[in-house]
């Protein structure tokens, strides 16, 4: 496939140059033909970046107290995958899912209100950053127990298969989650029952403070797809075009009944495991790598390509940022004024009716 990173040798165990922070700093390759999606992807990634930067600031200022795992630097997979889905599809995320929510069309206001604990939040203020749900836009749930949504996504795929309407389930998770046994159990279930689920691993090389080299004997998790007899792709996770092309093809196959598929998108987070700091206190790989990895910025690489191809002007790009920031500021302003859940409601969500 033309869009696959040059490094992809079909060695399912090694990331090779995709793991090299000196590589893939240049522009992404634009697709032929209509670029309208590319433009909206750029705008969307910028919006996500702006929203997460804002949330980071709110945390620093002490205005947001719930733990926030920012995906700054990882905007591409969310935007790419969301663009390949349709109504009826169901997406599950984990602790680092602001981007998944926004990419699917969730409102910035719903997110900021949620992290502020307001009743207008996407989870009615009951979940905070780590528990987001927005069924209308296909986000069926994100939770912070590592690996927990993977079997849930598989079960949602089982439901989709029973429905027979061609819907697809997507499970987003990180490289760390592949160390939880439930990941393997879920892969086996999906493969055995031939379920319509896309396993999408954002391999950012870290689980909390630990580099994958300290946690696994090889750095690419695509080897698990092979073990569970699943087709797979590995992509540059900071190339939104490559992510989209791989996902589009995968989703089409899954929809047509060919069973599960696995995509590994190699990326890197710029901020700490949790909160706005950069976590440069957690080991050599990260101290040395972060600055280089920032050169693989998915937003800048796409913007440069579009500027170069005269699909975008510098002023237009600045306007995109300004608009995004304005939207985020307005959402924050509004959310700040929203009310908190009523304390009388604490027990109201427990059971379908008071016991």
């Amino acid at each position, binding site marked *: 496939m033309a869009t696959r990173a040059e490094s992809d040798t079909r060695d399912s165990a090694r990331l090779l140059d995709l793991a090299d922070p000196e590589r893939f700093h240049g522009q992404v390759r634009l697709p032929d033909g209509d670029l309208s999606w590319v433009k909206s992807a750029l705008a969307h990634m910028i919006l996500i970046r702006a929203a997460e930067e804002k949330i980071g600031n709110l945390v620093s200022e002490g205005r947001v107290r719930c733990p926030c795992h920012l995906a700054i630097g990882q905007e591409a997979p969310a935007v790419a995958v969301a663009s390949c889905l349709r109504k009826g599809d169901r997406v599950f995320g984990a602790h680092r899912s602001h981007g998944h929510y926004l990419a699917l069309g969730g409102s910035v206001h719903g997110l900021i209100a949620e992290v502020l604990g307001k009743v207008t939040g996407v989870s009615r203020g*009951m979940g905070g950053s780590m528990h987001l*749900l927005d069924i209308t836009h296909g986000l069926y749930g994100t939770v912070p127990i590592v690996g927990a949504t993977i*079997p849930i996504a*598989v079960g949602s795929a089982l*439901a989709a298969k029973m429905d027979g309407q061609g819907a697809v*389930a997507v499970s987003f998770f990180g490289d760390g989650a592949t160390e939880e046994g439930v990941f393997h159990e879920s892969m086996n279930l999906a493969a055995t029952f031939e379920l319509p689920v896309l396993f999408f691993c954002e391999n950012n090389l870290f689980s909390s403070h630990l580099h994958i080299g300290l946690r696994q004997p090889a750095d690419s998790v695509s080897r698990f797809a092979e073990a569970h007899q699943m087709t797979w792709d590995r992509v540059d996770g900071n190339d939104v075009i490559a992510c989209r092309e791989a996902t589009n093809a995968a989703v089409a196959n899954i929809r047509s009944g060919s069973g599960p598929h696995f995509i590994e998108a190699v990326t890197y987070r710029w901020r700490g495991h949790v909160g706005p700091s950069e976590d440069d206190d957690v080991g050599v790989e990260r101290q040395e790598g972060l600055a280089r990895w920032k050169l693989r910025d998915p937003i800048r690489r796409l913007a440069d390509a579009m500027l170069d191809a005269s699909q975008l002007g510098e002023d237009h790009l600045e306007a995109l940022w300004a608009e995004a920031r304005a939207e985020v500021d307005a959402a924050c302003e509004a959310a700040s004024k929203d009310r908190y859940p009523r304390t009388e409601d604490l027990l109201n969500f427990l059971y379908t009716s008071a016991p």
Partner: protein
Amino acid sequence: MTVSYGGAIREGFAHLLENHEEVFAIGQGLWSPWYVGNSMTDLDADFGRARVIDTPVSELACTGAALGAALSGYRPIVIHPRIDFMLLAVDQIVTQAAKWRFMFGGQVSVPLTVRGIINRGGEQGAQHSQALHSWFAHVPGLRVVMPSTPSDARDLLVASVLCDDPVIYIDDRWLYGEEDDLGPTPEVDLRQEGPRVVHEGRDLTLVGCGYSTSLCRQAAERMAAAGLDPEVIDLRVLNPLAPSVIVESVRKTGRLLAVDGDWTTCGMAGEIIACVTEALDPGALRSRPSRLTLTDAPAPTSGPLERIYYPTVDDVVHRAETLVGVRQDS
């Protein structure tokens, strides 16, 4: 029609699969002729293997998958042929299913039933004997159901599956032989169900759940023959627990013996004592409340040890008589 407890469970499944297309069953052993006793025999043949799904040995993922289907328009029942195996699925039950509705502000409901079977005795030993219903009763967000009769086995299964909250339905293989005359299958609202007086009396209150209710009933009959008149309460729904029936009974009898097939510390029997003593003035009690529970050890295998390990009808009678003062030794 006379139906056994195991047969009644099967009737419940058949009713659900027949009348509710969003119901399906998933778990280990569902295509086996013997894995779950006679409680699901030939359901796969009758309703198809697409709706009666046997699985790999993956308790955690299978439970999570059932939860995922419950969030996507279905009413799955996930079956764990032993509670011991179900413990591998604790995360999906306790940290996921019990909490999803709450932590998403009531925007989703979780019509998931997790069926765990207590399967003990027969010298199976420490890892094939646990009950642990007290654990699940401890967790807000779960409804916990333990039928002690064939009709409850059927009707509470149906109620559990039709309930929009996650339900832990626990049946006990030691009850599979019990028989009842059953009429047509009703669809009751689980939220209206709770502890029930199953034998009226006035000398003391015996409380049990599942198999221990059966012990209490038998003990009551035995005691009646000896001129004593105990009241027996079957808990039926352990969580959320509605203790008022028990409190009122003890207010009347002044004496409480809670019998349970789970361990003592932080167990169901202690919970009953706590509920009652919190609710009644000390003067309302004619004697100290008491609990009779499983021996506080893992299950042994050796026959002679196994025979003293589990509480028996004799034990219940003995303890009850001591409580009432008919018997002097404690």
